[in-house]
């Protein structure tokens, strides 16, 4: 860069000040000011230097408030669903969640995204994980182990906003629901891979509702959020059912729940009124005895499927591993290294900000390649694990399809039920009613 006017006159005055300054302050400060080209002047007019203002971050106490609000609303929703059996109560709690976790806290940190922080903290010991993130991750899971997915019912701001928009529920074909239901497992696997390699937090990056909660986002994110809400009008909670990776964990833990909500407060009278009441297709209908096939045949087929599972996992793992370079391209270091490796002449011409910054950093190309190679080899291992996981999910989904369990009553599917309490209003059975079966 060229300077069109000369600095000489300026420097003359400065030099006098520098000399005076060194004499006055002694040598102990010289090392500090060696870096400064123009030392701070001492004003003759008595001018007082203004203070540098650095605005404070949010008070730490508010972080504890978030945890208290989370635990309190989890407990309240659980009580409303299990004891009060009140849909309207759950509805108002979801409005509260939209207001507090959504618009007030602007959607960060949420339990869904927290799983990436947990993975990063496990893999990278240098990452200091905030205590609130640990609570946001574990509390809903522990609640679901005892009481089902009450977190999904009205505490999660992502679920609450979709539930609010659900006006004209349309029932989906069950095969379509099963197929789409595999996507969250894939999303979970990818988000863990990218979090573990410190590449990206894809759940946060593609969170469709964060832009709405912040009232500030790029057009694409608004469009994505809008599209999801539009779909939510007809198909209940599309994000929760067909994308949410945290929902996968809740689905698994909720299956073990000790005291899950029930449709009827007493014994089911088989009235079928609740049959189509669930907008999420999470009610298991009774299976007639004649539909249950010969036990020997089904056990044999099931055993075969389980025996082929290791093979499916291996094929999945091998496929995942062979895509590891493609998966690694998401990492910015790997991307930069591959650009330079393909065409080393980019270093001589100023092409992109990243290459400029790389040149300024003083790192050599060889060092960058080494670093990128390490990351790629992490992705090779990650690809095996990810692919194996997909294989396992695929195999188990297949095996599960062959199980027909004999069932007498209409019961919520513990894994998929969001405990939203809609079906309860359809049940004509009153609490403490005595059913005379005779």
């Amino acid at each position: 860069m060229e300077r069109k006017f000369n600095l000489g006159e300026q420097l003359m005055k400065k030099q006098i000040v520098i000399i005076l300054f060194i004499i006055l302050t002694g040598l102990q400060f010289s090392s500090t000011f060696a870096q400064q080209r123009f030392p701070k002047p001492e004003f003759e007019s008595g001018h007082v230097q203004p203070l540098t203002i650095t605005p404070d971050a949010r008070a730490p106490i508010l972080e504890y408030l978030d945890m208290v609000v989370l635990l309190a609303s989890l407990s309240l929703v659980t009580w409303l669903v299990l004891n009060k059996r009140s849909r309207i109560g759950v509805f108002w709690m979801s409005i509260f969640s939209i207001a507090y976790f959504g618009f007030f806290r602007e959607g960060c940190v949420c339990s869904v995204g927290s799983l990436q922080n947990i993975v990063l903290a496990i893999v990278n010991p240098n990452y200091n994980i905030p205590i609130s993130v640990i609570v946001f991750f574990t509390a809903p899971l522990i609640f679901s182990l005892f009481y089902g997915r009450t977190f999904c019912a009205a505490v999660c701001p992502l679920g609450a906003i979709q539930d609010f928009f659900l006006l004209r529920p349309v029932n989906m074909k069950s095969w379509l629901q099963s197929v789409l239901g595999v996507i969250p497992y894939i999303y979970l696997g990818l988000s863990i891979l990218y979090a573990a390699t410190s590449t990206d937090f894809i759940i946060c990056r593609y969170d469709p509702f964060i832009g709405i909660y912040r009232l500030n986002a790029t057009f694409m994110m608004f469009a994505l959020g809008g599209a999801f809400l539009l779909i939510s009008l007809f198909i209940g909670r599309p994000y929760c059912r067909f994308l949410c990776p945290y929902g996968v964990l809740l689905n698994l833990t909720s299956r073990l729940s000790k005291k899950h909500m029930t449709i009827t407060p007493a014994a089911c009278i088989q009235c079928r009124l609740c049959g189509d009441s669930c907008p999420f297709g999470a009610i298991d209908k009774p299976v007639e005895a004649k539909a249950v096939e010969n036990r020997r045949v089904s056990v044999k087929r099931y055993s075969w499927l389980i025996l082929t599972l290791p093979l499916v996992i291996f094929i999945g793992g091998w496929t995942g591993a062979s895509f590891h370079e493609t998966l690694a391209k998401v990492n910015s270091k790997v991307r930069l290294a591959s650009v330079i490796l393909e065409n080393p002449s980019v270093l001589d011409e100023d092409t992109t900000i990243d290459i400029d910054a790389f040149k300024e950093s003083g790192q050599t190309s060889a060092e960058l390649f080494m670093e990128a190679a390490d990351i790629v080899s992490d992705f090779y291992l990650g690809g095996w694990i990810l692919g194996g996981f997909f294989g396992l999910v695929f195999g188990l989904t297949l095996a599960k399809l062959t199980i027909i369990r004999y069932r007498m009553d209409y019961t919520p599917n513990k894994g998929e039920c969001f405990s939203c309490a809609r079906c309860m209003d359809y049940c004509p059975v009153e609490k403490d009613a005595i059913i005379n079966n005779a």
Partner: protein
Amino acid sequence: MAADKSNKKIARRDFINNTFRFSLVVGLGGLGGILSKNTLGTEMVWQLDASKCVQCGRCATDCVLTPSAVKLIHVYDMCGYCDLCGGYFRPEAKNRSTAAENQLCPTSAIERVFIEEPFFEYHIDKDLCIGCAKCMKGCGSFGNGSLQIQVNHDLCVNCNECSIARVCPSDAYVRVPANDPYLLKGFKGDGKKI
């Protein structure tokens, strides 16, 4: 007899469920416990390390907020009060006047105030600053480097993953404890020098 058998079956399923539930509660509790050893007991917020910054300009464009939460902080302790300020004037400026054509800042967010011969003080209008770091580059190249961009925590919404951190070419973005959230060069809060 049949009732007996189904009772047994339910009892077995309960037992398996209880075992899994118990081990998962213990596992989650243990995981939380182990991870909490690595916590600083405080929230972590994003900050850019001014000493690593290469002034690429992405802070102005890649924040989820518009305008960006990254803004200039003037470290007066480091300022030389130069008449000819490399952060204020464009390199090809015609003269040392406050005319817009001479200013480096695209939004005229820097105010130049005469103090005494030959010193001038430079104030930042936070409402106008967009965090483009042009002045930081100018000041760092020709002056002391007292003009430094930082994430302003009254504005930052503290995303779980900072969208600027993802595109920062020099890995300058780091998580810092919320009670000490600035990484300025040659300055450490409370008006004290490092």
